[in-house]
């Protein structure tokens, strides 16, 4: 981590990585009309960017991904370990720190006029846009699928991701209003 990361930043990064792990304990829930269950995983990615900023948010998620690689079963459903990074969907997980950075950066430059709608848009750009932009080509390349097929296969997760972006927006907006220290910390 770079020179200007203070001890306080490290504590924030470590605790948000742990929070990301705890959020994955929220059981996957099924929404009637969707074919796949919604897991909370990218919710943590969106929240990290929106709540502790681009750099710290990205480092927190990077630390979380590192913990998974070290062999902690922190992914939804108790998955983890090195095998995750050799599977076909590794790109989606490797995209998370970048996603948190983009969401965080957009939030930072618009901090004075943030509201639930902007939180939703920025969460979607990072947590859906960036994740798919890295994850889909990765999947296509390693699984020898065409880009189109890989994109089609990933499409069933988009409705769930949109719901998560909305949930992230409501949470981020509630925290922004109820925990004024956030502004001071930034």
């Amino acid at each position: 981590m770079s020179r200007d990361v203070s001890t306080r930043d490290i504590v924030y990064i470590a605790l948000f990585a742990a929070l990301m792990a705890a959020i994955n304990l929220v059981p996957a829930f099924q929404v009637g009309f969707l074919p796949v269950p919604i897991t909370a995983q990218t919710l943590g990615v969106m929240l990290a960017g929106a709540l502790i900023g681009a750099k710290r948010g990205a480092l927190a998620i990077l630390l979380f991904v590192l913990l998974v690689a070290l062999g902690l079963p922190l992914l939804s459903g108790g998955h983890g370990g090195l095998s995750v990074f050799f599977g076909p969907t590794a790109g989606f997980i490797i995209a998370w720190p970048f996603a948190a950075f983009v969401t965080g950066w957009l939030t930072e430059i618009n901090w004075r006029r943030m509201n639930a709608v902007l939180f939703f848009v920025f969460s979607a750009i990072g947590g859906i846009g960036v994740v798919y932009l890295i994850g889909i080509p990765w999947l296509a390349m390693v699984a020898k699928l065409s880009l189109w097929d890989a994109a089609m296969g990933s499409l069933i997760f988009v409705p769930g991701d949109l719901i998560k972006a909305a949930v992230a927006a409501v949470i981020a907006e509630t925290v922004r209003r109820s925990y004024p220290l956030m502004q001071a910390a930034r």
Partner: protein
Amino acid sequence: MTIGLYHPGRSPLHRASAGAKVAGLLVLSLALFLVPSEIVVFASVPLAFAVYLSTGVPFRSLLAQLRGPAILLGIIFAFHLVFGTVAEGLLAVARFATLILLASAVTLTTPVSAMAELVEWGLGPLRPLGVNPAKVGLAIALSIRFVPLIAEEFRLIREAQAARGLAANPLALIVPLVIRTLKSADELADAIEARGYES
């Protein structure tokens, strides 16, 4: 106490150093994508399975761990079946099966602490770029310590809400969890600074 997916044992893989195992895994994964021979790729699946079994972890928990990846590979094979050729699908699935088995074998036989040491060691050469391995180590240790604490906090909030007759609602659960986490982060940072920790 052991945490994570590590399974204590005395197999040859358990005795090998973490660095050697991870380096071997990286070399093999690269080789598997570069070797043009299909026979080698297919032959590597039973070999990788043998390595996986050699960890000496009870068979039932080994199979349980493979279920998730197996479903995923099934979906990918189905895509190849519909839009491509059977041969291509088999090849893709065989590659993944080998790598997932070997990577799982490494994770099952390497304690998290040994992996964390390996990361700190690997980050050493990045020092000139401003990366401080000791700070990364502190972050890893802190977050490993805090995962069970925040999970406990999560359970307490859930129970408090259930006692008041509220159903599990992700919104109502996560907002207090986030705020409590931010508060404890501030307190912890104050405590560390008050004790003059600077690295």
